[in-house]
């Protein structure tokens, strides 16, 4: 480099050292998610269906003045203006059963799903962050729970507990559906835990559990949200299955129990479609919508899946 040129540079008016960052036109984090969420058809449709059923669950029982299992009308009636979903073989109001059953369904989903989510997150985060022997032990626990034959356990419980409610059922489901959650969270925590910002947090004097809560979990918030939705749907389905084979609550009513009764009392050969179609459709639609919501959420949170 020849001298005259550097002198020329030095003599010229110096540029003010203003560092111009990349201009911001991108919505950040939550707002960006909301923007895409409002436009995602799968999410909106799925959410709408679930909300409709939720509305029925909340409002429905208020519209009937009798309990779901009371014998109120003539048996085996088709749907009419009086009994919107007709009556069962014994003269019970199918609509009342349906509305109350929906309540039980949502309760199981919330409780069972929530419990499974809590356990899965606790075990997943701990195993993923601590690693080493703790990870090995928790892995073994996860594997054990995974292979336990839940049906057999449930049968044994059923013989000991003569009276069972919805809440114990929800707890049971919650206690056995968390392994995949723990595995997935563990894997994510491993990869996030090796990122430099976790090291930086340690250098700032932040302790282990706090790091998980304040640094790692926020980065997985979308995934945790989706996990909960999946667990909710899974619990509903599991409860319906258990109820259908007679291992559900001994009192009250649920959609699965309705189907169980309908099959038990030959509703299908007798053509009493109004007895088993509403609960079956209800379960299918709720669980299906939840899964579709999940796919939609995945697109919302994962920029690569969005169609441009």
């Amino acid at each position, binding site marked *: *480099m020849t001298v005259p040129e550097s002198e*020329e*540079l030095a003599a010229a008016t110096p*540029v003010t050292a203003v560092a111009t960052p990349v201009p911001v036109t*991108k919505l950040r984090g939550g707002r960006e998610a909301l923007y895409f969420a409002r436009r995602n058809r799968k999410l909106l449709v799925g959410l709408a269906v679930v909300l409709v059923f939720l509305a029925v669950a909340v409002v429905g029982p208020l519209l009937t003045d009798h309990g779901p299992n009371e014998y109120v009308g003539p048996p085996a009636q088709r749907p009419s203006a009086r009994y919107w979903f007709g009556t069962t073989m014994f003269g019970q109001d199918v609509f009342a059963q349906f509305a109350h059953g929906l309540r039980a369904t949502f309760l199981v989903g919330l409780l069972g799903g929530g419990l499974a989510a809590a356990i899965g997150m606790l075990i997943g985060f701990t195993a993923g962050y601590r690693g080493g022997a703790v990870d090995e032990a928790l892995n073994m626990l996860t594997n054990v729970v995974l292979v336990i034959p839940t049906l057999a356990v449930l049968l044994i419980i059923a013989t000991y507990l003569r009276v069972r409610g919805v809440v114990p059922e929800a707890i049971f489901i919650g206690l056995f559906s968390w392994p995949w959650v723990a595995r997935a969270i563990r894997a994510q925590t491993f990869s996030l835990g090796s990122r430099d910002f976790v090291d930086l947090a340690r250098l700032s004097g932040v302790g282990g559990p706090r790091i998980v809560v304040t640094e790692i979990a926020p980065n997985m918030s979308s995934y945790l949200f989706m996990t909960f939705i999946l667990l909710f749907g899974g619990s509903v389905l599991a409860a319906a299955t258990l109820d259908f084979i007679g291992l559900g609550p001994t009192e009250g009513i649920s959609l699965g129990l309705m189907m169980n009764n309908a099959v038990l009392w030959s509703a299908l050969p007798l053509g009493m479609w109004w007895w088993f179609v509403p609960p079956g459709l209800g379960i299918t639609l709720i669980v299906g919508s939840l899964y579709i919501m999940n796919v939609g959420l995945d697109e919302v949170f994962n920029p690569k899946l969005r169609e*441009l």
Partner: protein
Amino acid sequence: MTLKVDNLKVWYRTLRGQVQALDGVSFGVADGELVGLAGESGCGKSTLGKSLIRLDGRMRHVGGTVELDGKELPIADPERMNGFRFKEVSIIPQYAMSALNPTRRVGRMLAELLESRGVAMAGVRDELLRRLELVGLDAEVLDRYPIELSGGMKQRMVMVISTILNPSLLIADEVTSALDVSTQKAVAETLVEFRDRHYVKSTIFITHDLSLVYQIADSIIVMYAGRLAEKAPTDTLVAAPRHPYTRMLLAALPEVGVRYGTRRLEGIPGSPPSLLNPPTGCRFRDRCPLAFDHCAEQPPFAEVAPDHFVACWKAF
């Protein structure tokens, strides 16, 4: 001329609008020339390299033509480009080490690749083995899976594969960035060797490392914010650069022998403009110590000396 690029414009489609990654780029590469394409991140050098072979789905060709060996390259049409890829225009991608299919043995992958171009592996095998030996690889490498090879070996393998059909134009996209200093030197020298043995006709070597490009290139192109700033033979560019950006860039390179106490280097204050909505006129204007009002008009990329092109009013 082997390669002639005329007013090439390539934009990217993004959520926020069109990123004008390449805005009217024109230059030529002679037969057998090794051109270094240097610039900082976001200047468009990778886009330029990839646009010559059209491998990136998000690119939109907006204007301009590319001529190779007298024929026009159909760079606006990725489908038609398929006929040219690997045979006449080839690329060694960045992160070449991850470019090998992990589920295929290397030899089989190569055979499939050749077959897709209508070339039988048998006809190429002897030459292939000769070249593998040149870069220090054993013939048995072809029977291995990529995971069994070290990073350096994979890099060399990809270099041989990319050049096996003797392309007219080879684009080496940041092939040395992730490497250690000794491997960097070996890879750079291999590129020169390929050119000397006529395995490839011309090479465009894309990098951000000016001192590396100085070692092996015949001429250097410096890019800034989607446009060419300067093009000159290597020694000329380094000894007597005419564009202020090139000068400041060279002045910011720490060298072995330069100490903080004795000679303090200076960086370039500010940062490059966003290409979503680029400013009119010369894009270096905001950071340039020599800027004056005429800079509001974009200077042409004009020849100020034989083979020496600059886009700066002050250089004319």
